[in-house]
């Protein structure tokens, strides 16, 4: 039994290390990238991978390797930002609903049910398509439905924590609702909601790059994997590397974050 836990812990650590490496690479894109990701070069159009251009060049002679690195930053940071915002708003609403109950709870939870009643990607495509606002629009479109899962989770945990004697004690001591929520409820519900946030990174990344691929997210020429693949798809016969490298980067990143989420879940369930 002990060795199984140790094994699971090792799994979490390895996955977390790879994820951190990816994040660091994304953050250091400027330092690592050998070329300017936006510099076009008419003499170097669609060149195969070489020492100078590790992943080759695209239709405009831009360095695919540098663009993949910069794309990592766009994809990872927008995903993490979106998950963080949804996490923050959802948890806050969930705690307020769970703690105060009553009409506020009733209304907000019905709204949450409503977003669950419709297919997320259909809503996202329609909203992103209408907002016409690039990456921000895509994030809003996905965020509309994302916060609700955090709200539901935070609310149900808040309902449990609320029953504990120390909450009653704190209330008798005259502490305000806001104080109790921040100081006593939040620390006690944080773990499950944070883990849920972690497991959502992979799917969120799929959503953002999918919308960008459709042209509803990142606006060209900004480097982002989904839109790079979408652009280079037209000349995949001549320059497959311009599609395959960003595709590999997308798959690896999503796999790593999904694996991390699974590993953490498994570790917790066996704790």
């Amino acid at each position, binding site marked *: 039994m002990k060795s199984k836990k140790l094994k699971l812990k090792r799994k979490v650590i390895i996955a977390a290390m790879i994820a951190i490496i990816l994040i660091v690479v994304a953050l250091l894109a400027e330092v690592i990238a050998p070329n300017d990701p936006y510099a076009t070069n008419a003499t170097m159009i669609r060149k195969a991978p070489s020492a100078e251009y590790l992943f080759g060049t695209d239709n405009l002679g831009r360095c695919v390797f540098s663009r993949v690195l910069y794309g990592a930053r766009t994809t990872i940071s927008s995903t993490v930002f979106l998950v963080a915002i949804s996490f923050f708003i959802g948890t806050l609403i969930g705690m307020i609903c769970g703690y105060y109950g009553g009409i506020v709870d009733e209304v907000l939870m019905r709204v949450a049910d*409503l977003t669950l*009643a*419709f*297919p*997320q*990607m*259909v*809503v*996202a*495509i*329609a*909203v992103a*398509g*209408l*907002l*016409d*606002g690039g990456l921000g629009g895509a994030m809003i479109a996905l965020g509309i439905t994302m916060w609700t899962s955090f709200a539901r989770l935070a609310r149900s945990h808040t309902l449990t924590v609320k029953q504990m004697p120390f909450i009653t004690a704190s209330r008798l001591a005259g502490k305000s609702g806001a104080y109790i929520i921040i100081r006593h409820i939040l620390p006690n519900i944080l773990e499950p909601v944070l883990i849920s946030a972690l497991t959502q990174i*992979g799917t969120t990344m*799929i959503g953002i*790059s*999918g919308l960008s*691929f*459709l*042209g*509803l997210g990142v606006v060209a020429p900004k480097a982002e994997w*989904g839109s790079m*693949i*979408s652009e280079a*798809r037209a000349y*995949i*016969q001549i320059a*497959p590397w311009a*599609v*395959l490298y960003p*595709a590999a980067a*997308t*798959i690896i990143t*999503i*796999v790593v974050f*999904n*694996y991390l989420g*699974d590993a953490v879940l498994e570790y917790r369930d066996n704790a």
Partner: protein
Amino acid sequence: MNNKVIKRIIELILLLVVLSLLTFALMYLAPGDPAEKRLSSQGVAVTKEVLNAERARMGLLRPFFVRYGEWLWGIIHGDFGISFKDDMPVAPKLIKGLKNTVVLALSSLMFSLIISIPLGLVAAVKKNALIDHVVRLLSFIGNSLPNFLVSVLLMYFFCIKLNMFPIIAEGNLQGLFLPVISLSIPMIARFSRMIRTEVLTQLSEDYVTGLRLRGVKEKYILLKNVFYNSIGHIFTIIALQIGVLMGGSVVIETIFRWPGIGKLVMDSINARDYPVIMGFVIIMGTIYVGINLLSDLLNKVIDPRVEV
């Protein structure tokens, strides 16, 4: 019992009314003026008078609730309005697209089930054996693949490297193949994982031990009892995947130029053709909510203990 079903149907109608209101409000608030877009796409010089006349002609100047009421009334009668792009009625376009999408979606669903039911069963029965690990690994990877990537990669290997299929899918059987595979791969991953879990739960039930003790053959238990008891759950899994399938079909249809409702909506988004987008959301929402209700009712038919 029947009261509960009626209650669910009333809830469903309310839900759809709210959906229609939200959709309409969204279009109302959306940036970009369809009248202006329309005029400039026709090459008309946009002056204030022309713009206002066009807005009035398109019915954009009347109050929100009047427009909403008219629109909703029309939809109830099967009239989804007139396309901003070409002045043609929207409903026939949506229906034509929907037909193609249903063909694509049903084929993918069938294909996924045919592959994933045996995979899930085998993985559960041979728990922790090599085959189980392989199925789990594949389903993990499949679950991490965005479907636009799957289709681009499939296109690269099958159409360009192997030259087996035409790049642009025409509405025939050969054209159906790659879109179906692209939609199915992530679905197979999810289905086989969920079916495995469900079968494992069933296998640990007392009735399985009882049957085994009575000397009933393992194969018989598995196919007759365990599988039958899992069917209700499989319906639920399918119903949950319909939403993902709908989003996925927009992507896949756009990539393979499959003439479905998803491609129609992407074209309409680019042209700011609001009535088509609104119709798309309403139709997809109705189908989704309807299928979810249907799967709950089916569950009830299969297993009368289930509460609707």
